[in-house]
């Protein structure tokens, strides 16, 4: 079938399988937990990649990240639901649903206005959460221990392994689906809308609807990432889930990764996570200096992100649909 002929899908499958196997049998726990956090963020970055290919950058996707995280946390706290097969789809749906509603406004804006309108919406959620005492205000609250197929894990180490395998499976699935999407006619509308909206309208397609669809998709992916993050950290609070710095991190990792491939967010996100850990060890008070310097280097010397190194090594041109 054409799925098997698609080199990217084959590559993604081998890559994620290898990462999963390495993780389970070889990697130390600290690296496992960093990878879980990195891949959770990568799901959100995958969403931003879809927007970026359309020429749009959002400075407020922490809104959807936070919605996903709080959906998982609140389902546990108020409904006693900790089954990840329910909480994670719920996180995706809630974020996608809010994205759908806000999309009617946001799809009318471009460039800096698009970026900032998202930021404004995310600050509204941040404000609401900080003011809501029943949700722990700025302290947030802890997330129930997750179960899978109704079964919980007995030790922290087991929980980590299950989460790790879980995020590898979900990451693989999301990457494959987004890749297929980018190869479709709808996916090709990204290039089209970015390059020339007038032509798109005169080909008989609504630019507003195209952007709206992509926006919902990015919101849903970001919500899924936020849901995973809540489970991985075992705790939600406005500062680490909804603050504008979280949105900034997502944009940061998007640029670091590059728009060239759906695998890029996972690689870029892992690099970011490791970079931040080491930077904090080397310069506890000034890790931002190292991380910021790295971003500068990327922008100046690698505008295609870290993915451009990989694609060069594989001797391929940037894969644009």
């Amino acid at each position, binding site marked *: 079938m054409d799925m098997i002929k698609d080199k990217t899908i084959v590559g993604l499958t081998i890559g994620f399988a290898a990462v999963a196997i390495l993780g389970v049998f070889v990697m130390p726990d600290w690296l496992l937990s960093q990878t879980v956090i990195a891949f959770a963020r990568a799901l959100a970055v995958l969403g931003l990649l879809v927007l970026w290919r359309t020429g749009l950058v959002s400075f407020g996707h922490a809104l959807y990240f936070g919605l996903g995280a709080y959906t998982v946390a609140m389902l546990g706290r108020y409904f006693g639901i900790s089954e990840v097969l329910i909480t994670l789809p719920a996180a995706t749906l809630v974020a996608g649903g809010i994205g759908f509603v806000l999309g009617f406004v946001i799809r009318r804006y471009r460039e800096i206005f698009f970026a900032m309108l998202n930021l404004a919406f995310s600050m509204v959620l941040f404000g609401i959460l900080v003011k809501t005492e029943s949700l722990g205000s700025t302290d947030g609250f802890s997330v129930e221990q997750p179960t899978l197929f109704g079964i919980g894990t007995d030790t922290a180490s087991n929980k980590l392994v299950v989460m790790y395998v879980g995020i590898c499976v979900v990451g693989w699935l999301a990457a494959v689906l987004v890749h297929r*999407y980018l190869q479709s006619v709808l996916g090709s509308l990204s290039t*089209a809308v970015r390059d020339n909206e*007038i032509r798109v*309208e*005169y080909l008989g*397609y609504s630019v507003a609807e195209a952007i709206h669809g992509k926006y919902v998709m990015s919101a849903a992916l970001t919500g899924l990432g936020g849901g995973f993050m809540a489970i991985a950290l075992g705790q939600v609070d406005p500062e680490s889930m909804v603050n504008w710095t979280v949105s900034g991190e997502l944009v940061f990792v998007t640029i670091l990764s590059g728009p060239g491939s759906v695998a890029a967010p996972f690689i870029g996100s892992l690099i970011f996570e490791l970079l931040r850990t080491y930077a904090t060890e080397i310069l506890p008070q000034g890790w931002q200096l190292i991380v910021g310097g790295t971003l500068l280097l990327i922008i100046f010397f690698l505008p295609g992100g870290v993915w451009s190194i990989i694609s060069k090594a594989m001797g391929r041109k940037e894969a*644009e649909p």
Partner: protein
Amino acid sequence: MSPILEVTGINKTFGAVTAAKDINVSVANDEIIGIIGANGAGKTTFVNMVTGWLEPTTGSIKFDGRDITGMAPRRITRLGISRSFQVAQVFSTATVFDNLMIALGIAETTSILSALRPLRRAGLEQRADLLLKRYRIDDYRDAVASTLPQGVRKLLDIAMAMVSEPRILLLDEPTSGISVEEKFDLMDIVMSALKEEGVTVLFVEHDMEIVERYVDRVLAFYQGEIICDAPPSEALIDPKVIEFVIGDEPQGQMMREKAALHTGSGETSDA
């Protein structure tokens, strides 16, 4: 036969500027019409209104008996009217081939489900290759659109307008920015391709030799009004057209001389 396009009493004002004034045009199937007029005469405004970019202040536009006044461009495109642009509108970061592929993909899309099919399909690729050949741009197949010479970009723009297989095509200055030597080559390619596709054509043009060569009928615009609607043999020697339209064009002198021969008056000093 009933007209394929019927424009009745349309007006368009932008503040104090009247860009269209009581325009009435009826177009029959398969006509090739040239739209002429000095800069600012309202030619692009007319094209914009027929294709839905602008809504007329008053009046109505009917396509194939159906009222399309004020309809969105994408709906009018789907119904069967397409256009090219004074400044070519292409996807500048994509290759020529991909421009056509994306255009074909979008034109073929009728629902979300059909939009989720892969873009790279044998059927679409064949059609893209056919268009490349038909518009003689196959040498530039893999060139990125932003790097194209002006003539090729214009041809690509027209080819993209044709992917939806329209029944009416409006071309806004297909030869603008093209050197005099290349204009006829370009128009030969365009007109023979369009003949092959069997489409009614209205094109805006400043070069009267081109108009004379390719059209069945001329619409001359002056300050938003149609001052002449006639075959080129009559329109291009009409005194009003000569004074208000051709006088401003580069070949005005030559045309005035021609007209003088026809009318025998020898008065060429006006305008």
